[in-house]
């Protein structure tokens, strides 16, 4: 690893070596073997990284080859006789009708009502109550043990005011309160920092849902107005559901994936 440009300086002053081109050529020829030797012998993380890189390149190469091959071979007309024969005036037209679109929206509404969702994380590890709450001892002799502090991340709305401290049973520490989440759009594959509107459902129980506790697998509602989504009717969508994909209490941030 040359530090400085003394090699280039020498080359500039005295020119290249006489066998420079020959040596370059031979080095390039050996590159191939070197690459394969390195890929086979590298261990650990480095090996994994090299393997992943090679795989990616291989996939790309295959795709480009297939693309080029597509244009040179002549495709035969699709000979199979399909079902659903239509006259010529209907052939170029979209067969999905308004009825189907309507039935799809109705089905979505029904699903929302039932609370059944097709979520990316269908099963999450159940969190026990001892893990979720820490018992806070209060009182002059620290004998009363009816208070609990939430050890996981929680969301409280913007207009949240604590109950009078003497009577609040569940303490949600401000250090573990978050109002924003990093939401990834599954198809666009980009992540946005969106405001949380509320906690819709915590899989560990409805008590946690009402408290606003956010653990892995929780469905939260986020403000997507900045994404600029519009319904088929023309209305602007400003709230969508997302499912939390990490353990926020360990990472210090809430990562979620949008449910489309």
């Amino acid at each position, binding site marked *: 690893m040359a530090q400085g440009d003394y090699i280039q300086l020498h080359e500039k002053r005295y020119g290249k070596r006489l066998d420079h081109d020959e040596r370059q050529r031979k080095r390039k020829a050996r590159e191939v073997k070197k690459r394969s030797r390195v890929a086979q012998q590298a261990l650990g993380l480095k090996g994994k990284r090299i393997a992943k890189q090679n795989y990616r390149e291989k996939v790309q190469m295959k795709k480009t080859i297939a693309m080029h091959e597509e244009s040179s071979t002549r495709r035969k*007309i699709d000979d199979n*006789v399909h079902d659903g024969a239509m006259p*010529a005036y209907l*052939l170029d037209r979209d067969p999905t009708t308004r009825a189907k679109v309507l039935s799809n929206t109705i089905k979505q509404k029904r699903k929302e009502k039932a609370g059944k969702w097709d979520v990316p994380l269908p099963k999450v590890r159940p969190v026990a109550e001892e893990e979720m709450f820490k018992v806070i001892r209060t009182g002059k002799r620290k004998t009363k043990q009816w208070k609990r502090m939430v050890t996981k991340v929680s969301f409280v709305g913007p207009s949240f005011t604590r109950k009078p401290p003497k009577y609040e049973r569940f303490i949600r520490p401000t250090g573990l309160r978050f109002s924003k989440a990093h939401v990834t759009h599954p198809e666009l594959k980009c992540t946005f920092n969106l405001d949380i509107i509320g906690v819709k459902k915590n899989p560990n129980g409805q008590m946690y849902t009402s408290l606003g506790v956010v653990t892995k697998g929780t469905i939260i509602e986020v403000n997507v107005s900045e994404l600029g989504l519009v319904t088929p009717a023309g209305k602007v969508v400003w709230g969508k559901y997302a499912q939390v994909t990490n353990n926020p209490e360990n990472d210090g941030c809430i990562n979620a994936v949008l449910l489309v």
Partner: protein
Amino acid sequence: MAVEEGASTSSGNTVMCLLTNPEGEPLGAPLYLPQNVGPPQLQEIVNKLLNNDEKLPYAFYISDQELVVQLESYLAQKKVSVEKVLRIVYQPQAVFRIRPVNRCSATIAGHTEAVLSVSFSPDGKHLASGSGDTTVRLWDLNTQTPLFTCTGHKNWVLFIAWSPDGKHLVSGSKSGELLLWDPQTGKQLGGPLTGHKKWITAISWEPVHLQAPSRRFVSASKDGDARIWDTSLKKCVISLTGHTLAVTCVKWGGDGHIYTGSQDCTIKVWETTQGKLIRELKGHGHWVNSLALSTEYVLRTGAYDHTGKTFSSPEEMKEAALARYKKMRGNAPERLVSGSDDFTMFLWEPALSKHHKARLTGHQQLVNHVYFSPDGQWLASASFDKSVKLWNGITGTFIATFRGHVGPVYQISWSADSRLLLSGSKDSTLKVWDIRTHKLKEDLPGHADEVFSVDWSPDGEKVASGGKDRVLKLWMN
């Protein structure tokens, strides 16, 4: 002038009338007619003035509204002043009268997939249908049973067309090939005609007054070109390329030009000896779905008419067809109407100019099918907005809307006397509309699924319809 002496001329008022033919030319000088004159008397007057040997029926229209009562009542209703000359337009009506069909006489199963097109032969004696099960079937109209099953296509049969002399049947399929059939035996004549690369959208034969026996036909395809084929040489003689997108419809006009409408929003007019482009008619904003010619019905039926006469030689047929065509056309040039996805239609006179004569707006969804009436006086358009609209066939002014369907209207067909209109729709019903009263005449439910194709036989006896439920229904009176 025969005026009924029995009826007393109570008011004694007379009105000045001028009888004009549909094109606007006056028949004789203006006449002073008493006000109790009605359509029967006017009919006699017209017959006398035209020196007709037989009493032909006429219908009378004052400013596009039919005159059914005596002039007196009409004037009172409309409060028209007697000072001005009243223009009465007379229109010849068909001598024969077709009865509306009202019952399904037969439901013939046979196809194993949806029926995509049905067509009667020009003499009304044969019926053929093409279907998604790749067969063309010929049906016996006397016994209402299947006659022949013609296999040979590799994919759905999208379009069938009878030659105007009734001797050949050609069918086009989704794989782009055309097959010729002999309707008497049901056998294929020769091999498949290949050349198109994508599916066939429309077929039209050369009129029999230009050539008898019928030899040539033109086919339009999704690949953007139209081809002229010769049945005796069994190959493509000319290829009309020029459209950039699919050609959706093609018509062979009576003056020997071919009109093609395409998805690239233009209509091209071609001449047939060398396949050169004569004119390009631009104006539509979206796909051109359907074309209609004012002489279309006469070209389709060729030499056959309601008298049911048969011809022994092709020359005789050619002469009779030519006479019929000349009578139908008169002195006016052929009119062409195109219906498009941009919800409007244009009325063109392609022989005169490349600018449209009129723009027919009013539909709220795409126009799928346009069809001139057999006498050329009316134009009907079927649209996906569930309505059928009636227009004046000469000027293109709107006359009436027929509402009643609950689904998009796919195809329409006229009865041979131009008094009844039939429409088939996605809601599985067929409806017969009366042109005179602008109302629904008959409702024909019965199909189990969408109705894709309807046809009224040229002799007016039967209606055939086929659709997604795979049965062919014959309707009679």
